[in-house]
C-alpha cells in the first residue's frame, strides 16, 4: 500500500504524545530535542499480536522495538527468555552487534510497540549515554556508570589499592640517628619499628614519626645515639591491607594520628603506611568532620548535643549521589564512637569492670549500613559467668549506654536486642553454646531470631574475647546443613517484580507505588553475601567489605561480586535519598520519585538479585527451596 507516501514525511508534525513518551524514556531522554523529533515523526507504532507478529516484525526487521503497552516474551539466539513489558526494549542486540541473531517473540498480551529505525538508532548512538545504555543492556549488566562515577567510591577502596609504598622499617635497637638518616634518604615522614627476636617473625612494636623526632628528641635534648625503642610510640594502632580508606580516616580522626601502619591481614607483616597526605589527595567528603567533633566531647551532655546533629549534618552534606555511599558508614562509625565515649564516661564515674568484656553490635551497625531509621542492636560478651556484683555492674553499664544511645537519637530496639536485656549479657562459653544450638537446629523460626547475630562486630572492650568467639564460629558456620537452611531462608523473601518484570508495590503503605527497598532488596543481598562469606570463613560483617574480601576461589565470580556491590550501593543510595529528601526514616521508595534511568536500573538490579537468590539455593541446598 503506497497510501502512506501520498505526501512527503512532515517532520514538523510529530505526535506530542510520542515525543513526550520518548522524553520520559531512558536513554532517549539523553538525546537532543531535534533528534527526538526526528524519531517521533518517523517511527512506526504497531499493535503486535500473536497473529500478526510475523508479518509486522518482518516488515520492521532491523528496528529497535520499544514496548509502550502489552507483555511479550523475547528470545534472542541462545540467550534465556526475557519477559518484557512497557518501557522495555528488544531488537538492540542485532543493532549493537550488527548480527542478525533472529528474534523469537511470544505475545503474552498484545500491545503497542514503537519501531525505531536502524538509521535513527545509529543517530542515537552518537550520544555517549545512549550508547552506554544499550551496550550495558546488551551485556546484561546493570548500568553501573552512576556508581563508579561516584565521588565517594574511593572511600570504599581497599587500602592495598591506594598505597603500595614499601614502608621503611628499623629495629628497636637502632639509633635515632640511624632512623633519621634513613627517613631523610627515603624522603618519608615515618618509620615502622619491627622486633628482631631470633627465630620468630618480625612483629610491629612501634612507630617513629617526624613529629616524634622533633618533640621527643630535638626539643627534649635527647642524644641521637638513643635507641629508637625509647622514643617511639609503642604498640601503635594499625589496619590490615584489606580494610578501607574510610576505616583509616575514622581511626586517624579518632586517635588524632597522621600515620597509620598497614599490615598484611594474615602474616601481620608490614605492607605500607598510610598518611594524612595520602588521604587528603583524595578526600573531598567534609561530612567526615562530624566524627572529629564527636571524639572531642568530654561529657554525656556534649556528646548528645553533637550526636543529635549527625542526621542534619549528613542531610546537609550529602549533596551528590555518591555521598550516600558512605552515609551508612558514617552513621555506624559515629554510633561506635558514641558507644565508646559513653562506656568511658561510665568507667570514669563508676569505675572499671573487674571482668573483661566486649561491647558487641549486630545488624546494620555491624555491617556499617545504618540509616536514619536503624535502631540499636547490641550485647555484652563477658569473659566468664559474672558474680552478683559483676552482674550488677554490667547491668548498670548496659542501661546507661543503651539509654544514652537512645538520647543520642539511636532508637531503642523494639525487639529488645540490647545489652540492657539480661539475655544479651552472656559469657563467652554461653555464647559458644548458643552458636552451636543455631547450627544444630536451624529451623526457619530460629533463623528469623538469630539471623541478626550473624553480622556482628566488636566496638569496645576486650577485642580478644570476640576474636575467640569468631574463631570458634568460623568452622561451625561452614556446616553444610546450616548453610543449606540459611539458603532456603534467604530464598523466602522475593524481589518485588512480577513475571513480566513489572514492579509489585508494597501493600498497606500510604503511597501506591512504593517498594520496600530494605526488605525486598538490601536484606536479600545481605543474606546472600553473608552465605558466601560464612562458607568462606570470612568474619567481616559488612556486605560491601565481604564482597571485597571473598577469596578468589569463592563461587561468586569477580564479575558477580562487583555487580552485587554496585547493586547494593545503588539500593543504598535510593533509600538514603528517599529518607533525606522526604525527611522520613522508612525504606518505602516511591517509583514515581525515580528518574527513568533509575527505574531501569532498579528493574535490572532486582532481576540480578533474583538470579543470585536462585544461584544461592542451587549452590547451598542443592536446588531445594
Amino acid at each position, binding site marked *: *500500500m503506497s*497510501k*502512506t507516501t*501520498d*505526501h512527503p*514525511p*512532515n*517532520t514538523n*508534525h*510529530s*505526535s*506530542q*504524545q*510520542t515525543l*513526550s513518551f520518548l522524553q520520559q524514556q531512558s536513554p532517549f531522554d539523553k538525546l537532543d530535542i531535534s533528534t527526538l523529533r526526528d524519531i*517521533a*515523526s*518517523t*517511527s*512506526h*507504532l*504497531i*499493535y*503486535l*499480536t*500473536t*497473529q*500478526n507478529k510475523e*508479518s*509486522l516484525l518482518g*516488515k520492521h526487521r532491523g528496528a529497535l522495538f520499544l514496548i*509502550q*503497552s*502489552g507483555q511479550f516474551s523475547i528470545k534472542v539466539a541462545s540467550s534465556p527468555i526475557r519477559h518484557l513489558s*512497557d518501557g522495555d526494549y528488544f531488537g538492540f542486540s542485532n543493532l549493537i552487534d550488527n548480527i542478525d541473531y533472529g528474534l523469537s517473540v511470544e505475545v503474552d*498480551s*498484545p*500491545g*503497542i510497540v514503537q519501531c525505531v529505525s536502524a538509521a535513527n538508532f545509529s543517530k542515537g548512538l552518537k550520544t555517549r549515554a545512549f550508547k552506554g545504555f544499550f551496550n550495558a543492556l546488551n551485556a546484561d549488566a546493570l548500568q553501573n556508570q552512576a556508581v563508579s562515577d561516584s565521588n565517594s567510591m574511593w572511600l570504599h577502596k581497599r587500602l592495598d589499592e591506594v598505597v603500595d609504598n614499601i614502608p621503611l622499617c628499623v629495629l628497636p635497637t637502632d639509633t635515632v640517628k640511624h632512623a633519621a638518616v634513613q627517613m631523610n634518604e627515603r624522603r618519608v615522614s615515618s618509620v615502622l619499628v619491627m622486633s628482631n627476636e631470633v627465630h620468630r617473625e618480625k612483629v610491629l612494636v612501634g612507630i617513629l614519626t617526624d613529629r616524634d623526632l622533633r618533640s621527643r628528641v630535638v626539643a627534649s635534648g635527647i642524644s641521637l645515639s638513643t635507641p629508637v625503642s625509647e622514643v617511639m610510640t609503642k604498640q601503635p594502632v594499625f589496619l590490615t591491607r584489606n580494610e578501607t580508606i574510610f576505616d583509616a580516616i575514622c581511626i586517624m580522626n579518632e586517635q588524632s594520628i597522621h600515620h597509620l601502619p598497614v599490615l598484611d591481614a594474615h602474616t601481620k607483616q608490614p605492607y605500607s603506611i598510610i598518611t594524612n597526605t595520602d588521604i587528603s589527595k583524595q578526600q573531598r567528603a567534609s561530612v567526615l568532620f562530624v566524627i572529629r567533633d564527636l571524639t572531642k566531647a568530654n561529657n554525656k551532655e556534649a556528646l548528645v548535643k553533637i550526636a543529635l546533629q549527625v542526621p542534619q549534618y549528613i542531610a546537609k552534606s550529602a549533596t551528590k549521589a555518591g555521598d550516600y555511599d558512605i552515609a551508612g558508614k558514617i552513621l555506624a562509625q559515629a554510633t561506635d564512637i558514641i558507644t565508646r565515649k559513653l562506656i568511658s564516661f561510665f568507667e570514669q564515674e563508676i569505675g572499671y569492670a573487674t571482668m573483661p568484656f566486649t561491647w558487641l553490635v549486630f545488624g546494620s551497625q555491624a555491617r556499617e549500613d545504618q540509616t536514619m531509621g536503624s535502631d540499636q542492636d547490641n550485647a555484652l560478651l563477658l569473659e566468664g559467668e559474672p558474680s552478683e556484683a559483676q552482674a550488677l555492674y554490667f547491668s548498670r553499664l548496659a542501661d546507661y549506654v543503651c539509654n544514652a544511645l537512645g538520647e543520642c537519637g539511636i532508637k531503642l530496639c523494639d525487639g529488645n536486642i540490647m545489652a540492657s536485656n539480661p539475655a544479651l549479657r552472656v559469657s563467652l562459653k554461653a555464647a559458644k553454646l548458643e552458636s552451636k544450638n543455631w547450627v544444630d537446629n536451624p529451623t526457619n523460626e530460629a533463623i528469623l531470631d538469630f539471623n541478626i547475630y550473624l553480622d556482628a562486630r566488636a566496638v569496645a572492650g576486650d577485642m580478644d574475647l570476640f576474636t575467640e568467639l569468631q574463631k570458634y564460629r568460623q568452622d561451625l558456620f561452614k556446616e553444610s546443613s546450616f548453610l543449606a537452611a540459611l539458603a532456603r531462608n534467604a530464598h523466602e523473601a522475593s524481589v518485588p517484580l512480577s513475571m513480566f518484570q513489572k514492579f509489585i508495590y508494597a501493600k498497606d503503605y500510604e503511597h501506591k507505588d512504593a517498594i520496600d527497598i530494605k526488605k525486598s532488596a538490601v536484606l536479600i543481598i545481605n543474606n546472600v553475601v553473608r552465605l558466601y562469606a560464612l562458607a568462606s570463613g570470612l568474619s567481616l560483617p559488612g556486605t560491601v567489605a565481604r564482597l571485597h574480601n571473598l577469596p578468589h576461589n569463592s563461587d561468586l565470580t569477580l564479575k558477580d561480586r562487583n555487580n552485587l556491590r554496585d547493586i547494593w550501593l545503588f539500593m543504598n543510595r535510593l533509600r538514603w535519598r528517599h529518607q533525606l529528601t522526604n525527611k522520613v526514616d522508612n525504606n518505602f521508595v516511591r517509583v514515581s520519585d525515580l528518574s527513568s534511568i533509575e527505574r531501569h536500573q532498579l528493574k535490572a538490579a532486582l532481576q540480578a538479585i533474583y538470579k543470585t537468590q536462585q544461584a544461592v539455593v542451587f549452590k547451598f541446598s542443592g536446588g531445594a527451596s
Partner: protein
Amino acid sequence: MIDKIVRVFTTILRRPPPSAERFKNMFCSELPMLALDLELTDLNTKLAKVTSIGWVQGIGFDVDLSSAYYQVVRASGDLKQSPVIHGLVADEIAKGQHVKAQIAQLQQYAQSHVWVFHNAALDVAVLSKLWKLLELEPVTITTIDTMLLEVYVVEKKHGFVPNGEVTLGQSRGRYELASTPAHNSLDDALATLTLLFAQLYSLNKASKITLQGLGHTGAVRAYTLG
C-alpha cells in the same frame, strides 16, 4: 409511475457509496485508514469553529508516524471553551493557517482511506459544514467510529452503557492502552487509531473480519460531506 420513482430513489439511497463499495469486502487489516480529529470551539456543531486538526495514517495494525499531520487553524470571534480545554491560546489560533488549506489536504483522502473517528457525528457535521462553505464537490466518506464500536462492546457485555464509559480514555483503558493527554487533535487521532487496532483484535483475533462484517456493530457508516 410513483412506484417507479420510489424504486429509483430507493436504489439511489441504498446504493453504497463508491468508496464503501470498494472497501466492504476487504479485511479490516487491509484497509488504508486515516484517523482524524478536530478540536472545536463549541460542542454545538452550528456554532463550532475548528481550532486545530490532526490526522495520521495506518494499515494492518501499523501506524506510520511520518504520515502524521497537525495544524492549528486560524479562527476569529468567540473562542468559548477552547483556550482552556484545548490548551491553545487565542494567539496561537490567530497565527494558524486558514482552515481552507487543511480541508484541501484532507480532500485527497476522502476516497482512498477509511476515516476513523472517536465520535464521528460531531466532527463529520463540522467537516460537512466546511465543505459547503468552501463550495467543495460533495464526497462520500466511509467511517469507522471507535466510540460506537465501544458502545457495541460494552452494551454486549453489560446490557447498557454507563455514563462516561466510552470516552477515548476509558475505552483505551479497557484494552490496557495508556491514557493519552487529551485535547491535542493529532494525539487523539493517534490514540483513536491504536484503539481501533485493539478493538479489531479483540473482536476477531485472526483479523479475518471484513468491513462489511463489522457492519453489525453499527460503527461503520458512510457520510456525505458537502
